[in-house]
């Protein structure tokens, strides 16, 4: 799995697609890892653009939780934006919408975090 990276208004925007499930979670974490290492105090916040994510399972949500924990421990900031309706439902049912910062659109995330 590849992440498309763009630096926009001081925000590290990372776009991904496909399924983040048993097969997709490990590649997603591996692709995210170098960006997470730089997600520290004073560095650009990460916004994960999930508009192309079709599905996320518990193992994918765990990957997001680990990323969130690492960023928080480093005083960095990470958020998720543009969930598809199905993924948004999974976030609500799993209560991940209460733990992670989720924005309706990428523009909303960039505006709030820049």
């Amino acid at each position, binding site marked *: 799995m590849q992440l498309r990276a763009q630096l926009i208004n001081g925000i590290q925007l990372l776009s991904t697609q496909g399924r983040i499930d048993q097969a997709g979670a490990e590649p997603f974490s591996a692709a995210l890892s170098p960006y997470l290492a730089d997600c520290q105090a004073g560095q650009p916040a990460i916004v994960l653009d999930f508009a192309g994510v079709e599905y996320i399972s518990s193992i994918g949500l*765990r990957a997001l939780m680990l990323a969130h924990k690492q960023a928080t421990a480093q005083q960095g900031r990470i958020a998720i934006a543009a969930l598809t309706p199905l993924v948004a439902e999974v976030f609500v049912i*799993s209560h991940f919408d*209460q733990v992670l910062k989720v924005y309706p659109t990428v523009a909303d995330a960039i505006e709030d975090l820049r």
Partner: protein
Amino acid sequence: MKVRFWGTRGSIPVSMTAQAVRAKLITALSGAAGVDLSSHEQVVAYVDRLDFATAGCFGGHSSCVQLETGGSEHIILDMGSGARPLAGHYLGQHGGKPQTYHVFMSHLHWDHIMGFPFFTPAYIPGNQLIIHSCHSEAEFAFRRQQAEPSFPVDFSLLRADIRFDVMEPGRDYAVAGLTVSAKKQRHGGDSYGWRFDDGKAVVVYTTDSEHDVGDLAERAAFADFFHQADLVIFDAMYSLAAAISVKEDWGHSSNIVGVELCQLAQAKRLCLFHHEPAYDDLQIAQILNETRRFEELTREGAPLEILSAWDGLEVVL
């Protein structure tokens, strides 16, 4: 096989409060505006149309489940506070006639043993109780909770023939017409799930079990343990987000993991169990609805029926 739930709450028993009863009455009476309730039958019909969270209650006893196999010996899963009303049920059915009770313990935490001192058949001579567990210290735990100063009746005063049977996980045992096996689970001090097969139906009782969703080998092992079960009684105490963040290592699981494991195992029914004591009926009903929706969203094969356990629920398999 029939499964009857006597205690479904996690960690500590809870009871209905006056405020909760009042809220249910207000909801029910508000919905009755304009409804003809002039006869008793109309009132009953109206109440029967109300949702469970309004007209019913998930209950507050801690873990205790009864399996009815059709045989003469009785099967009980855990001895939480639900064991007290279960004792009344057995006495009502059999009076003082000697009976054999097989108790299968998930583990020895207090909420799972606290009903035993109130399980009246243990006091009656002629009854036989066999307490099966995978914990070598089970007898110590049962005796200790009835020792002074914790309880007025010492274990030694119980008049039934009480035996402790320490079993090994991963082996098949024949007990009261059932094939029984246990599986070690992730929980403080270890817990064990149980699989019961009467040749016609399979029930898996898996409570107080945390799942590391990143451990694929563990996931496959549980899917194998649940394989094609007719009913999986599953610890769904927390949301997935809580279970892998603030409540990580607390030894409990979530509805999401329950659905995923049951789908992987091609199980037929998932029963959410060991409800968070802080949740009221509306919250538990909401979790049930959300879990059903999650199952719809993720379904690839046959539908998985989703239930939420309540004190008094009967499931016929």
